[in-house]
């Protein structure tokens, strides 16, 4: 056993008393920290939304310029002309969200509880596709679902396409250029956004809770219904939001995998803005979409009682 034999230098002795004021500084620190980032969001996010609101009630033309005339009829015209695209957007996004939940939950559960030493590998495989541009991957579905390809042939042989055609999801013996292809693409694109929050909330569940439930006479299915699923609710809520919101505004899948009959509201906004250059209508459409989503999201959050999403 050694002991300290030499006296090391003492803590520095302060010579003079610093003014008390010195320790009070830092009252303004949070504002300095917030300023640049918030300024960015105000100028390039909030301000544009306000600009857009004003554009939506302007009239005029590209050549003569636009003026605010409080022309609310634009909203009415836009809605009456494009309501099918709105309905389609909500339907497709909702279907994709439900499919993502049904497909994503087992995989998230598998990673959280059953993967063992494969956990890291499966996680990598879930995240890795992100690194290939999503446009390239979405284009690959064109190959997978190609007319006369193996997938479509198999579905034809099993008469699955007869059922989906009867339901109006597909047309004839094609999958490409039908609602099914668009929903399939949306589901594929936003699946990781469902899996990751689900996994995060499932992973937090103590496995002993399953044992406790089993010990208290719960069958595996009851354990899932009464213990696991309720505890994973935060993940379900943020997963569905992260899927539904971007899916409802998406126009890539409809454009690449669909046809003119599967156009969603995103397609309309895009073409109004970038091709037809009818800015008031485009602004009104995008404002309606934003409002609709905020309403749906608020209602959903209220209903599911989860406030801490961020």
């Amino acid at each position: 056993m050694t002991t300290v034999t030499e006296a090391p230098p003492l803590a520095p002795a302060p010579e003079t008393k610093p003014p008390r004021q010195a320790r009070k500084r830092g009252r303004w620190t949070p504002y300095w920290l917030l300023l640049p980032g918030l300024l960015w969001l105000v100028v390039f996010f909030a301000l544009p939304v306000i600009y857009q609101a004003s554009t939506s009630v302007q009239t005029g033309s590209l050549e003569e310029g636009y003026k605010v005339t409080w022309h609310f009829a634009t909203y009415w015209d836009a809605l009456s002309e494009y309501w099918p695209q709105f309905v389609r957007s909500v339907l497709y996004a909702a279907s994709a969200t439900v499919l993502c939940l049904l497909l994503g939950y087992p995989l998230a559960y598998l990673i959280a509880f059953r993967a063992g030493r494969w956990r890291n590998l499966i996680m990598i495989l879930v995240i890795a596709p992100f690194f290939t541009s999503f446009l390239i991957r979405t284009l690959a579905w064109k190959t997978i679902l190609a007319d006369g390809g193996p997938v479509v042939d198999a579905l034809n042989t099993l008469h699955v396409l007869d059922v989906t055609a009867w339901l109006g999801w597909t047309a004839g013996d094609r999958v490409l250029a039908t609602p099914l292809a668009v929903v399939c693409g949306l589901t594929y694109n936003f699946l990781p956004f469902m899996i990751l929050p689900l996994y995060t909330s499932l992973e937090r569940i103590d496995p002993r809770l399953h044992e406790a439930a089993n010990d208290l006479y719960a069958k595996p299915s009851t354990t899932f219904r009464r213990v696991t699923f309720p505890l994973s609710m935060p993940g379900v809520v943020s997963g569905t939001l992260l899927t539904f919101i971007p899916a409802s505004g998406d126009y890539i899948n409809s454009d690449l995998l669909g046809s003119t009959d599967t156009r969603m509201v995103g397609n309309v906004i895009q073409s109004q803005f970038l091709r037809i250059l009818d800015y008031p209508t485009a602004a009104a459409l995008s404002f309606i979409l934003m409002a609709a989503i905020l309403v749906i999201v608020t209602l959903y959050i209220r209903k599911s009682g989860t406030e801490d999403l961020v």
Partner: protein
Amino acid sequence: MTFVNWLKRHLVVLAGLFTLAYLLLPNVVVTVFSFNNPKGRFNYTWQEFSTEAWKDPCGVSGLCTSLSLSLQIALWATLGATLLGTMIAFALVRYRFRARGAVNSLIFLPMAMPEVVMAASLLTLFLNMGAQLGFWTILIAHIMFCLSFVVVAVKARVMSMDPRLEQAAQDLYAGPVQTFLRVTLPIAAPGIAAGALLAFALSFDDFIITNFNAGSTVTFPMFVWGSAQRGTPVQVNVIGTAMFVIAVLLVVASLLIGNRRSRQKA
């Protein structure tokens, strides 16, 4: 009977693996078709095996230019969003201030809004200001939508940090600057890195917002989009496959190094 039992036990695993296959199928197709030698402009049906495209990935005009532009934008956007986002996250966790609720909503809203809405609004602003669309407008837009994600990632990490660690540093003669550099920053680093990685991926792969605000500038996703109308060159599949492989290798390597290091120390 035993098979039914086995199926019951492993139903979750089978369903999970099915989903995994669904997720990876397009990547398999992309890889396979990077060795295709298509007839005509479209690379959607298998013709014959070829390594032509792999030998000359930049052989298509505009492809590698767009790729390098995307990388540049992603780097700068990551840097900007990470810096601004980290500052906001620290302010939110560490300080009390007025209008906290408003600040939180301003950060939450960009994530709760379809991209097409943000893209259209921002374009309205740029048009009104008469801004020249191109590199700078893309960069501004990317920093804007990456910012919130960085805030969330860093905030989570800083919140789980024990405030006593910083007090301990102060107690051990580290002044405010030293405390921040030697203790706060290293401990918050994984959160900041996660935020930066996310920002990079989001920026690099963004199409919708870029499409609205790029003018005639072509990023890699925009190149792919354009080529989808005209016929996708095989080189696009080559780049897609290469990025996938590089990403997987990097992650696996970092995991292996991490494992070995912790085993050596144990």
